[in-house]
Every structure is written in structure tokens, then in C-alpha cells.
């Protein structure tokens, strides 16, 4: 049994210790908002927060998680009220949407660290997130918009 804390809830899971966090979230806990894109830390679709830091859950074995809190896209807000979600909705960022959980988790981590990111900050923080639908221009604009919403909140 491994103890986990996901989206503010503690739980026990019975999985092989080397199982990547991604598959525990998706297949054991049913939190399928976190996506599988490459399995090699190349695409960012599986990005979650571990202790508030963005990590690629496909490369994070469950044994390395310990009691550090995990936040997934499902834990961001109950009602789309997170500034990043608001901005994403306002600008209709997603197309197929498959990358967007990961994009949003990277963006929220960025905005926590740097409430007013520059273009270079955005490039750096989002470099690990591929969007095959090419929504980058809107992601950039939505990060700026989220920064604005966040600063007014």
C-alpha cells in the first residue's frame, strides 16, 4: 500500500512501486484529465503539480511521490474559477484539447512563480508542452489574460 495525497484527499493505493504517477492517477484513481502523450517527458501532456511544482507524471514513479501533495487538473477548481481556466475559456484556447490539461498545469505553476511573466518566461515555462493543434498563440494570450485576472482577484 502506498499513501498518496491527491487534490487534498489522502488515499491508499496498491500498485507496484515503480508505476508512474500518471497511470496511478488515470487507471487506479480514475483521474483521466491527466493525459498520456509520449511517456518520455517530451510532451508535457501528463503535467501535474507535486508540492506545487510542475512535474511530468509519466516519469515520476509512485515510490518517489511519498507524502508530497499532488494536484491534477481536476483539483484546480470545482467550477472553472481558477484564473487560468477562466482565461482559457474566455479565449477559447483548446482545439482537440488533449494537451490542454498539461498546458494549464504548466501555466498555473508559472503564474504562481511569476505573476507577471514576460514572453521569455512563457517560452521557458511552456517549452515542455507540445500542442499538436498549434494553439500556442492563444495559450500565450491566455497566460497574459490569466495574469490580469489573477492580479485583480
Amino acid at each position, binding site marked *: 500500500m502506498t499513501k498518496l495525497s491527491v487534490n487534498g484527499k489522502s488515499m491508499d493505493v496498491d500498485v507496484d512501486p515503480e508505476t508512474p504517477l500518471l497511470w496511478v492517477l488515470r487507471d487506479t484513481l480514475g483521474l483521466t484529465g491527466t493525459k498520456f502523450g509520449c511517456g518520455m517527458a517530451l510532451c508535457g501532456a501528463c503535467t501535474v503539480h507535486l508540492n506545487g511544482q510542475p512535474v511530468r507524471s509519466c516519469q515520476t514513479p509512485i515510490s518517489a511521490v511519498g507524502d508530497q501533495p499532488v494536484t491534477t487538473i481536476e483539483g484546480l477548481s470545482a467550477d472553472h474559477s481558477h484564473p487560468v481556466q477562466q482565461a482559457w475559456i474566455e479565449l*477559447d484556447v483548446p482545439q482537440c484539447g488533449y494537451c490542454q490539461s498539461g498546458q494549464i498545469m504548466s501555466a498555473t505553476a508559472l503564474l504562481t512563480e511569476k505573476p507577471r511573466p514576460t514572453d521569455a518566461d512563457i517560452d521557458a515555462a511552456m517549452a515542455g508542452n507540445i500542442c499538436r493543434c498549434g494553439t500556442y498563440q492563444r495559450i500565450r494570450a491566455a497566460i497574459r489574460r490569466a495574469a490580469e485576472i489573477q492580479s485583480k482577484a
Partner: protein
Amino acid sequence: MSANPIHVSRRTFLGGLVIAIALPACKPGAKPAGENKIIESNAWLRIGTDDSITFLCDKSEMGQGVYTALPMLIAEELGVNLDRIKVEFAPAGDPYVNNLLGTQITGGSTSVRDGWEKLRTAGATARQLLVAAAAEQWGIDARSCSVENGVVVSPHRKKLRFGEVAEAAAKLPVPKEVALKPAHEFTLIGKSQRRKDTPSKVDGSCVYGIDVKLPGMLYAALAQSPVLKGTVKRFSGDKAQAMPGVVAVVQTSSGIAVVADSWWRARKARDVLEIEWDAGPNAALDDAKIAAILRKGAAGEGRVARHDGDAAAAIKGAARVVRADYELPLLAHATLEPQNCTADVRDDGVDLYVPTQVQQIAQGVAAKAAGVDAAKVKVHTTFLGGGFGRRLEVDFIPAAVEVSKAVRKPVKLLWTREDDMTHDAYRPPAFDQVAGAFDAKGNLVAWNLHLTGPSITARMFPSVTEKMVDPFAVEAASNYPYDVPNVHVDFKQQEIGIDVGYWRSVSHALNCFVAESFMDELAVSQKKSPLDFRMALLEKQPRFRQVLKLVARESRYGYPPKGCHHGLAVMEGYGTVMAMVVEIFLEGGKVQVRRTWCAVDCGQQINPDTVVAQVESSINFGLSALLWGEINIANGRVRQTNFHDYRVVRMSEAARIDTYVVGSDGPPGGIGEPATALVAPAVCNAIYEATGRRIRSLPLSRHKLA
């Protein structure tokens, strides 16, 4: 106004109105859809007595926005706000056949074009019936009534909700003809609406194929032959079977599957399978062989796609002939969601949960794999994590069905990224020979394009290529827009031993690169500006002139900032005409695409914000291919395996894109694909401006330019 194809179900759905659309009368083998034959399963629109309005979306949502644009067409005529319409994905079935393509298919940028009349007519018919039912109840003339967001209103402001009259409406005769609104009365169409699927895509609740979960479901990972089209000679699953969680090892028609209680365990156990492969006919295939096959295959005439005047004779007698050969590589689709399928094979039938662009074809292969009638297979289409043509293929479906049948449980079969990259139906490579001829006065008198490559359509829809040249091999070539008296285009089909597939914009991306790069070569040969040279040959093409002028003005074409260079391209595809200007600079010898301007005439827009989004998406898709896109084959195996060696554009590399859509109420054109095709020629034309180097093969990384 044509005869109304709409039928109304006498069988009520939860006591309501069900609108169905009759099969096109010309479809061979199709039975006329008598009213009593219409059942819930071929409905398009259900209006419940509880006021619910459900649209069964016949197209797959893969990012292109059909989940919003198509119900807009219904809502416009039905007289309800868009948020009143609930969208469900339609099952497989003839009523949902794409009239432009002949089977149920989401592709070819046809979704709006196919639905344009059909869905507005469905909405208008429902509205007319509902109004008639209300008017009858009031004993007044239906023409005096109006509709306000799902409520029929009498001249004296009496009101009946759609739900209150749905049952009565279902009993009325279907109007023989319905009038559709003229464009100037549109209240929704042409006005940007928020995408209906966005909220579910920012909170993780949107269900893609990979997210399907059924009670008792098992998970499967599949080992496929590393050499394309190889087969299993012998194998042992003993070691895999002994791994934790493994339930079974199953030989399928596409390789050996490991079935386990979690996908990760199945995937781990796959590593210890012992398989001896028969490499098959491609054992020695590689890039050089493919290139040689195409060059050799180019000899002789192909099937003719366009023949105006006599290009051969004009070239012979010309004062000056310019010739060039162009080459294009294989490409992978690399949808971000890897291929997957969940199958539940039971004695009473099969349920298939699958992100697919082709429900009926999926149903057919699943039925065959399960050994049942197609009617026994229910296809549940999920959201698609990208399509780009990859999910027109059904290669990932039979194995899921076979495994479920073997273990008698629902099974989700999921490919890894590596499986996906190495077992795609790749975009066909090409070897193309092009020539232009000038008379003594410098007039372009002939244009000849001889295309050589494998045919996708010959494999997927052989009945089409039995009769004619593969129409999806000669796009952006057979419709050569320039006013030249002698034009010849032919396509020489040359297979290469591996499967090729439709890839966003299909042959537009191949042929536009050749045609529009070569237009610049021709302009240069006459010392003319690429823009002026084109304009002079487009006197009879007002749509082309309009977008070229617009994009040239907005980009200040010809006056790039210091150190930057412009390139342009123009094309018609899917009924849409677009022109593009790019601004590049070279940094350490590498091309940086700084800005992109795109002017678009796509006829009547449905959801303008989606039009812009699709242009942006297509441009980045084309840019990835241009910069680094190539699949290399060595010993019959694909060398690229994941995103480290199949690079795609990331945030800092994405283009800044400005899109300008010209107002038009012409019929809608396709928008999900065409812009993809203009990126390569526009950038390569800019590279010529910058360096004097003419790029005739891709990607740019091969030339050390990316």
C-alpha cells in the same frame, strides 16, 4: 428549393419529435427511408416533451470545432439559443453518410460543407412542424406565429414551449419544402460563438478514447512487427504471462497483445515477450530505395488530371523552358493522443468505444474481427485527441476486438507513442517534375506537372481509382489557377511497399509546395516580382486577386523590416482561397519564421473564431513539417520513435499569425486543412529571397536551415 429530405419519426422518443434525414436517393442499395422505418438510431435531432433538444453530431470532434459549428446550423433555423442544444455523437449508420464523400467520414474539410443544407433544413423542418402544431392548437394560421428561443409565440403573445407541442408536431405531415433563411437574416451563423466543448477541455472531464472505462475492463499493450508489414513467425508468452497482473497473452492479426489488470503492467510485460518476426517484403527497404523506386516509377505518362491545349507541343516550340524536380518525404501524423480502442465483445453484440473519423469503416472491421454482422456492432465515438487524417485509418481496431473476444471481457488497447510513430500510415513521399515554358515575349505559355507517388485512395477506396485518377493526389495541381493556355497535370501511381495515408490537407501540401515554389522560379526567370508575376496571370480569378492584394497590403509585402525577408504563396483548396505571406530571418544559418499573414476567402463563415483558430492550427502543423518533418526508413523500420526525433513546433518556435477573412456569403469552404499547405512554399520562397538558394526538397533540417 429542392425536395425536403427530412423525415419525421412516428415513433416518439420519450414522447417527442424526432427528426431524421432521408438517405440521398442516388445512393446505391439505399432503401428509401419510410417514415415508419425511422427509429431513434438514425435521428438527427430529438425534441423531447421535457424541452430537451439533442443534436446527434455525425462528425467527429477532433479540434476543428464541429461540436459547435454544426449545432449552430441547427439552432439558426430551429430558433433556439445555441446553449439549448445538447450534442451527442451519432452512431454508425447510413443516415450519417457524408454526401460529399460517400461514407460516414470526418475529413476532407467537409463537415460544414456537408451539413450546410442538411442541418439547416433539419432545423427549419422541426421549427415548421412545431409552429404548425402550436398554431393548430390555437386554431390560428401558422404563418402568423413566431419562435423565440424554443417557444412558439402567437400574434397575441400566447406561448407554447417546443416540448409542449413536440408530440403533436410528430404527428403532422412533413412539409414538402421548407424555406431557409437568407444570409442577411442570420443571427448565429457568421457570429463568433464560444466553443461548446471548451469547459470540459479545461477541467479534465472531456472523454477521449484513452479515457474510456467500462466495468470489469482489462488493458492491453500490443507488440507489432518492427519491420513494416512483417508478421509473427513464432512467439512465447510464458515469461509475460508470469508477470504481475497479466491475464492473457493473445495473438492478434496485428501482433501479440498482453492483457493485464492495468495498462502499465501490460506494457511492462510486453517487454518480456519472446517473438520471432518474419520481416516480410520490406526487410531491406530504406529511404534511398524509396527515392529510387519513385524516380524509376516517374518514367512514362501517368493518369491525366488536367489537360488544356497541348503543353508538350508548346514546350517544344518555346523560346525558354524552365524545369525543376521536387521531392517530399514521408511524414507521421503524431496526434497527441496515441491510437487506442476499447472493445467489448459479448454474445449479444459488440460495443466499440473509439476515437475515429470513420464510424462505418470502424464498424465493418470490428464486425469482421468479431465474426459478427456489422449490425451487431455499436460504435461509440469519443472525442478525438487530434485527427489530422490518422484516424481515417482503422488499423488499431481489429486487435482490440480480437483480444476482447479472446478474454471475454471489455478491453482497452492502447498504443505507446513509439507504437504510434513507427506504425502510422505515413503521408506519401513524392517525386515531381515540373516545367514552364515562355514564348519569345516572355509570356508563360505552358505549365506541365508530372507527379509520382503512391496512392492512398487506391488502398482505401479502390473503387474510386478504378475509374479515375486519384483525386486526392492531384489537389492544388489540377486546379492550377493561372491563366496559361497549355496546362498538363498527370499523376503516376508508384507504390513503395508501405501504407501511406491522408495527412492534413493531403496532396495540397505536396503539390502546393511544388506549384507555388515553382511559380517563384518562373517569376525569377523573368526578373519579375513574385506578386506581380502571379497577379498578371490571375486576371480572371477575382477571389485569388482579392486575397493576394489583402495579404500583400497587411504584410507590407516586399518591404520587410531590415534583415527580414518575405515569401508568398496562394492556393485554392476545399472551396477556400487563401494567400499567405511569411517574414523570416536567418539566425546562425537557421530559418526563423517571425510572422505569418494569411488572407482567407472561405465563403460564408459559420463560427468566425474557429476559422481563425483553424488557420493558426494549420500553419503550425505545416511549420513543423517544413522545419523538421520526415520519417526515415532503415531496414524496413521507421527510425523516428518519439517527439525527440520527430520534432514538432513548440511555444517559442510557433509562428505569430495574423489572419484576415474576407467577407463573403458564397457557399462555405473548408477551413480545417488548407493553410497547412501554404507554409512550405511561402517560407521557401522567402529563403530564396534571403539566400538565393532554391529549396526543392524538405524538410529544411536536411538543408541545415532548421
